[in-house]
């Protein structure tokens, strides 16, 4: 709609609409440029503390630099190292493995649980659950990491539960064994994100027309059919959101790994975020850290953008 059309539509004071067009256009342009004054402060902070560092990360990634002395042009050498040094590319693979736990469990289990408790979503118990399930979202991830490190330790509650179930044999220091450390970190992430996903799904389900379920019942659809034919398609947007949020959390994980395993044992739980931190601030390999940082930023975009596409497409 054009600007004058809008004015006409508003039209309670016709006197302004019939004013000379030249004057009106001049005023609209002036207020238009005033918009830049409103954007300027936000843009300044964004440019100085985000855009400039992004550009610098790309620039650093082409140099060998220890952060103090002179830097030396390295071409694509740092990138070649990111993809050939096992410690570096494995950190990226670990991040993808974490997606199974950070994203897969909360979304799949979350859908199943939300569908089961949908009927009682307005009960007293469900209202209490709303508060309780949110707790992991509110506390610092660092605290979650510390609490879970203790739960998963050799003498922790998890092993106590296993012994109580007569499975004492499987008990071990979950975060200290290189074969179970990464899944154990994944479980911590799943704990943090499950509640958020369930609540998002429940709020999405409350918007589904109950008549749809009734119609399905009349057609003789079972619980499972109902779930796949009605619930899942209607929750397309919510599922898209959960998948996006949880995947970013997995790929960019740092806090939980830093407190629970520091990337160990060995490099079993090393993730890109932590590797960047070690490379830049303890090993003083700024160029290599920056190359990994660029790869991480690109990977996140490459994974998230297609999901956005799919979940936003032809929304009903």
């Amino acid at each position, binding site marked *: 709609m054009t600007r004058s059309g809008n004015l006409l539509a*508003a039209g*309670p004071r016709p006197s*302004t609409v019939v004013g000379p067009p030249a004057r009106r256009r001049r005023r609209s342009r002036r*207020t238009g440029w*005033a*918009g*830049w004054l*409103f*954007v300027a*402060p*936000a843009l300044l*902070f*964004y*440019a*100085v*503390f*985000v855009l400039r*560092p992004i550009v*610098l990360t790309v620039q650093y990634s082409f140099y060998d630099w220890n952060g103090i002395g002179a830097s030396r042009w390295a071409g694509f050498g740092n990138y070649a190292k990111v993809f050939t040094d096992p410690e570096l590319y494995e950190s990226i693979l670990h991040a993808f493995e974490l997606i199974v736990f950070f994203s897969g469990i909360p979304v799949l289990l979350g859908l199943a*649980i939300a569908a*089961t*408790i949908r*009927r*009682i979503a307005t009960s007293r118990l*469900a209202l*209490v*659950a709303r*508060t*309780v*399930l*949110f707790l992991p*979202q*509110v*506390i*610092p*991830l*660092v*605290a979650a990491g510390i*609490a879970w490190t*203790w739960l998963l330790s050799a003498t*922790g509650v998890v092993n106590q539960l296993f012994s109580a179930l007569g499975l004492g044999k499987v008990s071990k220091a979950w975060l200290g064994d290189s074969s179970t450390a990464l899944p154990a970190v994944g479980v911590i992430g799943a*704990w943090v994100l499950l509640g*958020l996903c*369930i609540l998002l799904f429940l709020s999405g389900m409350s918007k589904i027309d109950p008549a749809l379920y009734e119609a399905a019942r009349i057609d003789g659809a079972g619980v499972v059919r109902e779930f796949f034919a009605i619930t899942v398609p209607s929750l397309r947007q*919510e599922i898209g*959101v*959960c998948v996006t949020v949880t995947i970013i959390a997995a790929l*960019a994980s740092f*806090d939980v790994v*830093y*407190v629970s395993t520091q990337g160990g044992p060995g490099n079993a739980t090393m993730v890109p*975020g932590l590797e*960047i*931190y070690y490379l830049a601030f303890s090993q003083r390999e700024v160029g290599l*850290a920056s190359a990994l*940082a660029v790869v*991480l*930023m690109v990977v*996140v*975009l490459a994974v998230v953008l297609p999901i956005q596409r799919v979940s936003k497409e032809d929304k009903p």
Partner: protein
Amino acid sequence: MRGWTGRILLVLLMAATVLPFISLFVTALHPSGSYPSGLDWPADPQWGNFARAFEVARLGEFLKSSVLIVLGVVPVSLLIATMAGFATGHLRMPGGRAVFLLFVLGLTLPFEGIITPLYFQVRDMGLLNTRWAIILPLIGLYMPFSVFWMRAHFVTMPHELSESARVDGVSTWQLFWRIHVPLAKPALSSLAILLFLWTWNQFLLAIVLVDNPANRTMAGALGAFQGQWGTDIPLLCAGSLLILTPTLVVFLIFQRRFVSALLAGSLKG
């Protein structure tokens, strides 16, 4: 019958959610320096551990530091993001769409991606180890989401409202401050809650840019506390519980707002 499956499932789920907190609590009551096993109520609960942790963790200092950082980040971020959201969402500014897309570009940015140059930049500004080292970058890092959030509010505001105010000779600033900001209160308060939470729990920036835990955020201080007292499990658990109490209290007070803010926040993001 299905109702009961749901109920049982829900109770189990809640149990799994609070289990880590209970474990922290029970362990915190064991004698300092001991190595308790699992969920085991101590014969002689050491309530004094909390007082001791409060002291050795210098919790008072951390609390003050976190509050100062939140006060430095949240009001400024709210103001400038609202201004930018208003301009790109409501004023017809030339190039508005391009600027907005530039902000959107930063929505998925992992902080680790830019932490290295940020360190050198903050060092060159002479701000390393001060609270400004956390405050200023965080304002910039929050801009993509905050501008996105506020713009989503302003595009729903009818243009007729502004047009009729203009006719009365109101300047652009007055239009913004007197008419649109009061109407944006619900969007603003949700954003304020989210920014508070993210700032309070910010860890990476705190450990990289500030050495002295007394100038860090609560989460960053907890990291230092773990490094120092990691071997004294009961004390560490008591300290962790104390450090996460402030957010829990704020959450329980503003529960309803928190839940809707976080749900809406992730839906939009």
